[in-house]
Structures are given as C-alpha cells and as structure tokens.
C-alpha cells in the first residue's frame, strides 16, 4: 500500500541540529599541542608503545595495539559531506590503534536510533543533538556513565562549563560534546549594505533604527521564515530564547528550562513582545506573516540575493545557512560567505545582561561499555580528534583547548571570536525542554502566533505552559 510508505523527506524536514557542511578533512600532518602524540602522518600499523601516556589507560592500551581488530560502531545523523568529513577524521584513530571504528551516518536518525536502542541493537557510540534526548535515554538506564571513563576535571577545563552541565545528570557525565554551533548571528549582504551607508548595529536600539531606515528606503529589513515541515517553528524559538537571554538574568533562563519558573513568566512575555516588534511591525519582515509561516527555512534568505538588489537585508540564522545558498555554477550567481554575505553578533539589549551567546551542539553518548569503546570515546575528547577538521574549516569544536590559530576559515574564524567575547553561553532551551514542549507545543505555539500576526501573545504562552508534562 502506498500510504505505508514512510517519509523519506521526513528527515530532510526534521529538526535541524546545529551543523555545518564540511569539505573533506585533510589528512595532512599538523603539529598539535594535545597530550597524545598520535597526530601527524597516518601510519598503517599500530604504533609502538613508545608514545607518551594520554592519561587514559584504555586509550594507551589501544594505541599500543592491544585492541587491534576490535569493532566499535558510531551512529550519527551526519551524511554525505559532513559524514565523510567525520569519517575521515576517525582514520587517524583507526591507523593508530588498529581498532575498526566504524561510522554509520543515517537519515531518519532519531527514529532509527530510538528503535535500535529499544530493540537491543544500540550502537556503541551515538551522536545526539539534543540534551533532552540524552536525558530520556539516561532516564531509561541505557547510557554508560562517562565520569569513570573520562577525566572529568580535564573535561571541565577543556570544555565550556555550560556544555558540561548540559551533559551531566545527577552529578554524572553522560555525554561528551564534540562540536558546537552559535545561533546568535545575523547575516547581511555586505556590499549592498555598505553601498547604502548602513552600519552594523551593536545595540538593540541601533537594530531598530537600522530596520526603520531600511523600511524608509522602501525595502524590508528581515528575511525571517520558519516553515520546516514537521519541525516548523524552531527558528522562532531560537529568536525568543536569544532575546530572553538579553533581557533577563541567566538564572531566569536556566529556571525557565527546568520549569522552575513557568513558561509564561513575565520575563518571557516581555521577550516575546520585543520579538514581535521585529517580526510583525508593518513592513519589517519581507512578505509578512504569511511568508514567515509559508516559506521553507532554506529559502528564507533568497530575496537578499535578488539580482535587482536585496529585498530583505537581515537574516538571523546559524553558520550553516550558507549551505542553502546557490553554489552550482550553471548560470546562477554564486554567493560566497565572507564576500557577498557576512554576519554580525545579534546585539545586546540591556548592558546589565552582557553579551550572551545562544548555541547548539552535538554530543556523543555511549551505550556499550567495552575497553575499545572507552578508548574511542577517550580519543574523541582530545584535540587530536578534531584538529584537522577545525583547520579544514566548517567546523567549530566543542573542545576549547583547540588552539585559536587553527581557526582560519570563514565563518568559523568569526564565530570563534564571538565565542571568545561572549559573556555567557547557553544552549538552545527548546532542545533541553521535554520533547512535548521543546519539539511540540513550543513550535506549534510559535507557528500559531505568527498565523495570528503576533496577537494573543499571553494566551499562546499560557497554552504552552499548560502543555508542560
């Protein structure tokens, strides 16, 4: 029967985790400052035990070739370019240890992972984009506690503390962050922008002034759209969270996620009202509410590249959005990030709350505890696992001990700078809330809000609050 077909596109439309496409990682040797000595040119056989200790017993044993021939599986949602780049980065480990570290990148990822775990066929290591998902597996007792496998003090110095917190449940570490992504950036068409004499805003008031000026010039400032099939609405939740971070203390944000303050807290209502100003004010968003709800996320920015000149000028979206711009050469204009289009930090609103950054990221969790799996996850926590990808560009490592000079490629070079200047880093709240809210009523409520053109804010926030399980 045809309707029993399952949606191939579902995953294409599924929740977008923070991610970037990558050119294949190079395998060129490079010097690193990391503890293990296994960087450098790939070797074809397990290296001699002369390597200095990594501080991890299993990883040392693996590097000495003790587990050569063992199999370790990693399951992720990274496919094609990104999957290959990740797969290539694992080659170094395979060469050094002889362990067959097999990466499988699949579509319909969340469904398949859930089914495999429940079905007793869990991968050894799995990538997870949402802390909420990790917590759900942890609550079911499926995850291996990493506190005993990894050196937690080393982890908390190498990684941003807020990421470590997110991966920790009841004082035990269950996830190892691998890559991160920053959402608090706004893309704009550099050349046209400068030609018009516009300047990059650094405060909310400047952002409003710039928007007004663009409207007065007969154009629309914002390119925002949120249609993404099953996952429609997540762009709006990012916005609301970013504004909340800038208008309320961090504790409010954290308590909001934990539901220690209600979802419809006055601080959230205030943030929504500010957001409505940018979204629903007449002429502010290109195409109005109908386009916001009706246009696919990947097409949000298209009017910015109109041959006749930008029809919208600002697009708040994470660093992977250039993947959606035209890049094939057959007669289409090409848009090079960093040349035709650049980004600025989504400005602060109230100086007392500083310059926070909203981020996302991917972590690894471990389902099966075997020595070779321990070695693999230990290796993944080192700079060695990511240095080549950082250098190749298109990748922002969660590991902060990666030397800053390795970030040479735009836009990650700019992102790394924003990350350094940030006063705080917070993870996407909707990813950490219970799925019924974070991937359910929150998205749905935002879509409804847009359909009402920003009316009934309080009622919608009340509805979402009522849906909290």
């Amino acid at each position, binding site marked *: 029967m045809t309707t029993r077909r399952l949606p191939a596109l579902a995953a294409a439309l599924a929740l977008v985790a923070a991610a970037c496409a990558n050119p294949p990682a190079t395998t060129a040797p490079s010097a690193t400052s990391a503890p293990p000595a296994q960087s450098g040119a790939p070797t074809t056989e397990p290296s001699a035990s002369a390597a200095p200790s990594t501080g991890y017993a299993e990883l040392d044993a693996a590097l000495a070739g003790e587990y050569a021939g063992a199999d370790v599986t990693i399951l992720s949602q990274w*496919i094609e370019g990104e999957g290959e780049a990740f797969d290539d980065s694992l080659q170094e480990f395979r060469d050094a240890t002889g362990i067959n570290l097999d990466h*499988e990148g699949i*579509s319909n990822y969340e469904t398949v992972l859930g*089914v495999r775990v429940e*079905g007793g066929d869990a991968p050894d290591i799995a990538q997870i984009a949402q802390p909420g998902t990790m917590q759900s597996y942890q609550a079911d007792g499926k995850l291996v506690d990493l506190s005993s496998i990894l050196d937690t003090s080393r982890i908390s110095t190498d990684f941003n503390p807020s990421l470590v917190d997110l991966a920790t449940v009841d004082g035990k570490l269950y996830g190892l962050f691998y890559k991160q992504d920053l959402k608090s950036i706004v893309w704009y068409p550099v050349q046209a922008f400068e030609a018009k004499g516009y300047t990059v805003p650094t405060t909310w008031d400047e952002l409003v002034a710039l928007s007004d000026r663009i409207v007065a010039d007969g154009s629309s400032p914002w390119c925002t759209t949120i249609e993404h099939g099953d996952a429609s609405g997540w762009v709006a939740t990012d916005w609301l969270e970013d504004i909340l971070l800038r208008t309320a203390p961090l504790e409010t944000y954290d308590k909001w996620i934990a539901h220690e303050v209600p979802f419809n807290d006055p601080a959230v209502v205030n943030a929504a009202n500010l957001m409505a100003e940018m979204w629903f004010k007449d002429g502010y968003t290109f195409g109005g509410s109908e386009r916001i709800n009706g246009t696919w996320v990947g097409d949000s920015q298209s009017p910015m590249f109109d041959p006749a000149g930008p029809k919208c000028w600002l697009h708040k979206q994470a660093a992977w959005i250039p993947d*959606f711009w035209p890049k*094939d050469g057959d007669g289409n204009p090409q848009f090079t990030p960093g040349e035709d289009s650049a980004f600025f930090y989504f400005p602060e609103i109230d100086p007392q709350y500083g310059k926070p950054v909203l981020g996302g990221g991917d972590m690894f969790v471990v389902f099966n505890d075997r020595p070779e799996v321990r070695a693999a996850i230990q290796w993944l926590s080192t700079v060695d696992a990511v240095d080549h990808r950082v250098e190749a560009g298109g990748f922002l490592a969660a590991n902060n001990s990666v030397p800053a000079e390795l970030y040479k490629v735009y836009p990650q070079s700019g992102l790394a700078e924003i990350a350094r200047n940030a006063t705080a880093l917070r993870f996407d709240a909707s990813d950490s809330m219970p799925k019924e809210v974070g991937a359910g009523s929150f998205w749905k409520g935002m879509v409804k809000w847009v359909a009402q053109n920003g009316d009934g804010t309080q009622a919608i926030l009340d509805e979402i609050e009522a849906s909290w399980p």
Partner: protein
Amino acid sequence: MSAGVPAVAAVRPGRRQRTSLLGFVSVRVAITAIAVLWTVPTAGLLVSSFRSNADIRATGWWEALLHPFELTTWTLTNYGQVLAADGLAGAFVNSLVVTIPATAIPITMAAFAAYAFAWMRFPGRSLLFALIVALLVVPLQMSLVPVLRMFTATDLNGTFLGIWLAHTGFGLPLAVYLLYNYISQLPGELMESASIDGASHFAIFRRIVVPLSVPALASFAIFQFLWVWNDLLIALVYLGTDSTVAVLPARLRELVGTKGESWHLLTAAAFVTMVVPFAVFLLLQRYFVRGLIAGSVKG
C-alpha cells in the same frame, strides 16, 4: 506517454453498441481531462528535475516550458549528481535483492491462505479471517521495536532474510484480504468438477486458482513491489546503510544532506527510483486485460 488519448475510434467492440457519438466524445474528453489533471503535478516534478536549484526555487516550473529553447534553463546536473553518486549501482541491485523475494513470499503465502479461507472448511475460519483483516490497521511502527529485538536475538538483523520476513509480515494482511476477495469470487463449479475428477486441493490451487487469479496476483504484486521498493524506514532499521546491503532510497536520501539542503536532487532521484516500478507496471499491465481470464472463467 507524451500524447493524450489517441484520436482514432477506440471503442472496444464488445461494449460499443448504443454508445452515441456524443457519449463517445464526452467519454474521451473526460478521460483526457482526468489524465491531464493527474499528470500535471508529476510533470512539474519532471520539468523541475532538469532545472537548476536556483531556478527551481525562483520561478515556477512552467516558465521553463514557456521558453523551451532557452537552453541555459535546462540542465542535466541533477541527474549527473544522482547517477554519479558512489555505490548507486550496488544500492540498485540490493534493492532488487530485497524487493523481488519480499514481493513473491507474501503473495505465495497469501494466495494459499486466501484459497483456504475461501474454499476449505475448518474451525475458526471466520474468526481467523476477521483477525487478519483487523491487523490491517495495526500501524507497523508498533511492531518495529519488538521485531528488532527478535531479529537481534536471532542474528537476523542486517540480513536479507530478515527484511524479507519483515516485509512479508507487514504486507500479509493486505495481501490475504485482497486475494481472498478475488479468489472467493471464482466460480465454484470449476472447483467442484475438478474435485470430482479426483484433484487434490493442492492441484486445484496450482492448476485452477493460480492461473485464474493472475489479475489479482498482478495487482497485489505491483503494490507490494512499490511499497518495498520505496520503503526507507524498515530498510534503515533492519538492514542499515552498510554498502553491502543498503537499498536505493537509503542511498539517495543521503544525497539530500542532513538538513535537506540539496532537496532539488530529490527531483531527479524520484525519477531514477521510479524507473523500475514503472517498468513493472507496464510489464504486468497486460494481465489486467479481460481476454486472459475471460475464456477460462466461462469454461
């Protein structure tokens, strides 16, 4: 394929009587209209598959048809990228290895069962049949996890046998139901006379029921084939994406990218996947034609 309904008088002799010229014309107009209506959406996909990503997203697909000779608007890039994908040929063969047995096994099982339900007496017949029909509604998502547990325990996970069995189990209720409906309506006199001649149930099934049921078997074969051929979820869960077993939809889905950034490739991919089921339809279509069964039904 490209022409509409042919202009030559095209009424089958058996049913022509009393059909007025007006009725004849209106029938053909109606058919043509419906066929066009049904094809327009697909035509949009076909045209789009020859356009660049930027064009697809900027203007309507009919624009390309309005200016067919502006050759720059046409491109083979989408097909080039899809066909050049690594492992596509292997995935194609894997899809055949999965699909052919996963179509043949449920049909065989269902035909035997449908014959028994229709022409054999045994206690619990109605109840069992009702149960199987009721199972039509069980969403297969309910079964994914328990079946995977069973496959893991029996080492069937990631094997062709496992996925054949899974597709058989999930497809059987519909197969039994549809084939029962056909087989139960075959003329009883045929079975009776064969039975009097001393033929066993097995012989009746093989020599009378199967040949007479070809249209129904062909109909179901097409649907099961299509469903298995286009299935992604079951293949991902029970077979995985290892290149030795990965099927075509799984491979093509990877081309589209994590976030769907290359969904224009789906346009070309959709047509690449369609080739085989479409050929199967054309191949089996002649079995739907009256003449084949008419003679035998009427003895």
